[in-house]
């Protein structure tokens, strides 16, 4: 390499940037691009990837009722988990953002701790809680609320409970950051002008925390529809969502073309939502 080129790379920073960029190019972008042709090849049972090109895997994923049910279930799960995380997370975040308690840093660590703990371990905890002879059912039976154990594993409700628990800390951390930065004097002004606490909250605090609510909701939704470990362990091999369907197509059925097509549909949902939300956030920011 000539010294002039070296100096130019040094000045525009591309010399320093090239190792991380080459890594992303070779181990991220190229593998993703290599999956595009795979998703367009036919699948021959027992033999694998066939010759020629076809859009059948995309068409099937978006028309076949079996696939549509799984996609619909995944999206419904994402939506309801997001709403639960908002309902539980906003009050907790509000408390953590406003409390004067000297325990505040330790309470924050209680929110962070589950995030750092191995996801497989947290999911295992939910298996112990939700099984037919698990703590939740034992308690419900002992209290006489139900007579026989309620089915909470391998179905929608089990996934809903566990995924809400697993992604709640993300929502809380995003909201704490936003609520802490709200200008308190605007709330005080509303109170001074005679607004009750409910009016103040609904007309001042809540609208001002909207960017955080949006950011936290998108984050939780995308994480939920992308989740693999928890749906796989709590849903078993039969109760599927999109990511576990992809997992099965690649590792069990060896139908890589269909798996690749489903991967791109899942990616379109995740990446599409993230780009959409940053566009909305920019407009919110510009409007304020």
């Amino acid at each position: 390499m000539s010294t002039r080129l070296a100096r130019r790379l040094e000045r525009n920073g591309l010399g320093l940037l090239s190792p991380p960029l080459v890594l992303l190019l070779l181990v991220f972008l190229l593998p993703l691009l290599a999956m595009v042709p795979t998703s367009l090849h036919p699948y021959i049972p027992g033999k694998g990837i066939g010759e020629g090109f076809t859009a059948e895997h995309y068409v099937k994923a978006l028309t076949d009722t079996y696939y549509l049910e799984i996609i619909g279930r995944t999206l419904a799960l994402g939506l309801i988990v997001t709403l639960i995380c908002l309902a539980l997370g906003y009050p907790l975040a509000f408390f953590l953002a406003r409390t004067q308690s000297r325990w505040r840093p330790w309470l924050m660590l209680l929110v962070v701790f589950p995030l750092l703990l191995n996801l497989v371990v947290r999911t295992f905890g939910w298996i112990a809680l939700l099984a037919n002879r698990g703590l939740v059912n034992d308690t419900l039976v002992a209290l006489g609320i139900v007579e026989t154990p309620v089915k909470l594993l391998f179905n929608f409700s089990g996934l809903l409970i566990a995924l809400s628990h697993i992604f709640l800390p993300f929502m809380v951390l995003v909201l704490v950051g936003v609520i802490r930065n709200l200008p308190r004097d605007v709330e005080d002004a509303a109170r001074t002008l005679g607004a009750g606490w409910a009016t103040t909250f609904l007309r001042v605090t809540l609208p001002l925390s909207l960017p955080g609510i949006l950011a936290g909701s998108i984050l939780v939704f995308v994480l939920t529809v992308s989740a693999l470990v928890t749906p796989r362990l709590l849903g078993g091999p039969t109760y599927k969502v999109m990511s576990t369907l992809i997992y099965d197509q690649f590792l069990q059925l060896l139908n890589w073309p269909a798996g690749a097509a489903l991967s791109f549909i899942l990616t379109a949902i995740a990446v599409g939502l993230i780009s959409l939300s940053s566009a909305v956030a920019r407009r919110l920011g510009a409007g304020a």
Partner: protein
Amino acid sequence: MSARAAERWRARGLAAFAGLILAFLMLPVVVVVLASFTSTSYLTIPPKGLTLRWYEAVFSDREYIDALWFSLLLAIVVTAVSIVLGTMAAYALSRRQVPAAPAISGLLMSPLAFPGVVIGVALLQYYSLTGLRGSFIGLLLAHLVITLPYTVRTILASMAGADPEIEAAARVLGANPWVAFWKATLPVIRPGMMAGGLFAFITSFDNVPVTIFILGTRHMTLPVKIFTAIEYGVDPSIAALSTVLIAGTAIFLVLAERWVGFHRFA
């Protein structure tokens, strides 16, 4: 009821609700710890009897111990390389006139937006073609891709606090570029490097969705090992192993908090 008293009750109600949610967050953790001490051969809570035999079973199982060491080794190497690459990228983005800088930082962050399972299957196919499947270097490269967003982001944030003039002054006074960086900039961005490193370590040590597709048969990581064990059926030894991880994570968190004030970065 006076307005004051109403205010106080509202505050108490909010604190009580917050306490309940925090209890909900800790519930599975407590349950796992309790379940690990049962003397029954099946999971039951509260535990029946009290025994440490499940811990003995885990610690005498070579497969678990090997998987633990392999996961730690992988996470440490990933963390070190990720900090170096993250610092290079963050330094270039904040101190140099990088062409198309927004696109480049967008690219560096993009692995965060992609579902882990998608990165996993893409690498499964790619590694099968290139022969990297099952290799240590393949795992290392994959984990670097998914940890880089964290190290770049935290180090980039801490670069904002490092005054470029100080490094420039060191250069004028005759320090070579490396020494100038080491003495003038590095001390300021060290907390960001530590925090980014902690995220990288946890992301690597925790990962299943990408790792499980590219692991092959030569190596085994701890989370994938537990994942497959649970798929075969749960027993109290998994609770014992989980409790070990819970204790390890708690110690890690307290130390991290002491070092860098972890909760500020989360």
